[in-house]
């Protein structure tokens, strides 16, 4: 509210400055509008339409798509699959990454080598990662079954396929989380640890009473972005699960469902509705997370 009054009597120099500022951010703004805002609004519009071929002949049908999406059992099933995936990826991805980060933050020999190794999965194309894991998991010729001498249908058994998929997710995301944790750890002043040592606190006590609380803003940030990331998971299921895989029903994520409708079946309107449904769900989750933020995050 404060800026409003001086706005009317801007000096010439200020105006020029504002124009230049606009020019400098214009590429980003234009990019955002064309690549993000316009598609977002268009998606919302399409969700109310029975869409025609090639984006022509959209017919407005109100909430008809929504009624179908909300009633369809597969929508809720896919949402549940997505949540199950998030329940594996987020906690394990965060905890393992935190432990690794603490170890790699110490002044040991070869830390940078290990950091690079753990970060590598992040550099690989997700589709390539999924293809490699698909063959590791293969029941007949896969490395896993060969090494352990087992005969487990890792990705075709509906009971365990979702866990197998989750493991790939954890593996891919650990490096990224770890790097964020390391940067968070480096912000914690060393004096706390020195003081704790003088007081006779063990390493584990230090971890839970200094590292964990002081790292909580970073942890919260990671948890929040990973939840959103996990809820929009698609490529893993798409690459690993064959269309005729029995476990597909129990692993397909909500974005996979969207892909099936929008791109395989060419029903863009219904697909758009699924996306809006997902957006609403993510908004609710984010809202709840924001509420609990103050309670869980330690603000010194």
């Amino acid at each position, binding site marked *: 509210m404060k800026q409003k009054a001086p706005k009317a009597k801007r000096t010439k120099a200020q105006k020029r400055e504002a124009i230049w500022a606009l020019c400098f951010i214009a590429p980003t703004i234009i990019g955002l509008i064309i690549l993000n805002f316009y598609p*977002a609004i268009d998606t919302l519009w399409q969700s109310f339409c029975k869409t025609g*071929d090639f984006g022509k002949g959209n017919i407005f049908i109100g909430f008809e798509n929504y009624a179908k999406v909300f009633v369809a059992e597969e929508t809720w099933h896919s949402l549940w699959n997505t949540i199950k995936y998030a329940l594996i990826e987020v906690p394990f991805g965060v905890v393992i990454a935190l432990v690794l980060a603490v170890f790699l933050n110490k002044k040991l020999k070869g830390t940078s080598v290990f950091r690079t190794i753990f970060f590598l999965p992040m550099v690989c194309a997700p589709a390539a990662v999924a293809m490699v894991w698909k063959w590791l998991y293969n029941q007949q010729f896969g490395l896993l079954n060969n090494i352990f001498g087992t005969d487990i*249908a890792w990705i075709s058994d509906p009971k365990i396929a979702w866990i197998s998929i989750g493991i790939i997710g954890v593996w891919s995301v650990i490096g990224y989380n770890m790097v964020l944790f390391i940067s968070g750890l480096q912000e914690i002043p060393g004096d706390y640890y020195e003081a704790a040592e003088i007081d006779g606190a063990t390493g584990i006590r230090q971890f839970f009473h200094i590292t964990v609380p002081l790292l909580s803003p970073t942890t919260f940030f990671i948890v929040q972005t990973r939840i959103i990331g996990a809820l*929009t998971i698609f490529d893993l299921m798409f690459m690993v699960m064959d269309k*005729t895989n*029995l476990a597909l029903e129990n692993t397909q994520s909500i*974005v996979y469902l969207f892909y099936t409708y929008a791109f395989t*079946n*060419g029903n863009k309107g219904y697909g758009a509705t699924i996306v809006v449904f997902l957006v609403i769900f993510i908004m609710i989750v984010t809202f709840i997370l924001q509420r609990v933020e103050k309670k869980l995050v330690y603000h010194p």
Partner: protein
Amino acid sequence: MKKLAAIILAAMMTATALTACGGSGGSDGASKDSGSKSGTINVNIWDSNQQKGIQEIADKWTETSGVKVKVEVVDWDNYWTLLEAGASGGTMPDVFWMHSNTAQMYMENDVLLKLNDYIEKDKIDMSKYYEGVKNLYTRSDGNIYALPKDHDTIALLYNKAVFDKYGVEYPTDKWTWEDMYEAAKKITEDSNGDIYGMAMNTSNNQDGWYNLIYSYGGQVITDDHKGTTIGSDESKAGMEMMRKLLTVGAPQSVVAETGTDSLFQSGKVGMITQGSWMINSFFTAENHADYAWALLPYADRNGNGTCEKEERWSAYNGLGWAASAATKDPDSCASLIEYFCSEEGQKLQAEKGVTMGGMTGVSDAFANAFEGMDIKPFLDAENYSLYFRPYTRKTTVWEDALQQAGAFLDPWQKPDDAALMAKACDNAQKIIEDAIAAE
């Protein structure tokens, strides 16, 4: 509160970016193609096996026309995303393939170049092309949007090494589906399940179980493309035979993970059925000397012990050469298409082993294109009955549903349960009828 708003916005953008990616990715690719310098025609296809041959034929056309042709391969999934994005307002490649899955949608929306005037002017005899392929690319008002490029048929592929090892006689043209069952049974049982006599997935439809339905007198899609008899007694008899084969074949969990082609090539399976478009991939495989083709088995419905014409059925499908309605140089595009589909172009295509022709009587040379591998069964299939690959306006909707749970995936899981297969046929009848009604 401001922070909350920002995060919600961010969340929304992540989710909607999914749609954005699809759209923008496509148009990026398309705009790359539209950089057509005057004098170059961009051709898009999806099969890298054919790229070399097609480019050579196109170069031959360039010799007389002086217009350069650039053949680019885009894999099947991206091909359709790209083409659709191009048709929705971007730029399409100049000349490209059409397929029965989507042809009707493209033809109805006038995004393809109408070829009637060119056909009339250059006096092209449309009766020389395969009927089903020709009809597919002709709209109900008589407008023609693509010329038939090729046709494909289905045959039985078997591994001689496996047959020799278990002392089973090779498939012959006298084989019924029952004979196939007996052979598969012997291989599976004698190897104690180490090697499977046959393998077929629910996704092997055109190249697999569709052919059983037709052999036994059913139809997946009726001739008018408005209905199905997949729930009829004839179809059920075909699928009952299929079920029997599955009891001695590779289990569903195996074929869903590894794929029938990979299983076959690793020597784990004695027989699969495959289409002629896959010949090259088996011809170039490591153990190709062991592989041989045979006619698809038949169903001896009248029980006289010989194969009548209407007892052996193979699916056939054909691609079409189409051009964009918005191309800068429609005359050259039409001329290129006409050359591809002329007798000369079609014979070249067969000689080079690219595919069999869309024109009748030009494919004999194709049989000799694969030295050391006898692929005559694909040509012999035409002496019996052919049906055009079942399609409707939105084929993928029901085609995908048939492969999954709620349809044929259920009996594929438990092939011992005969009632389950019959029920799946009834479910399939409903799935197809509902899908057609929603088109």
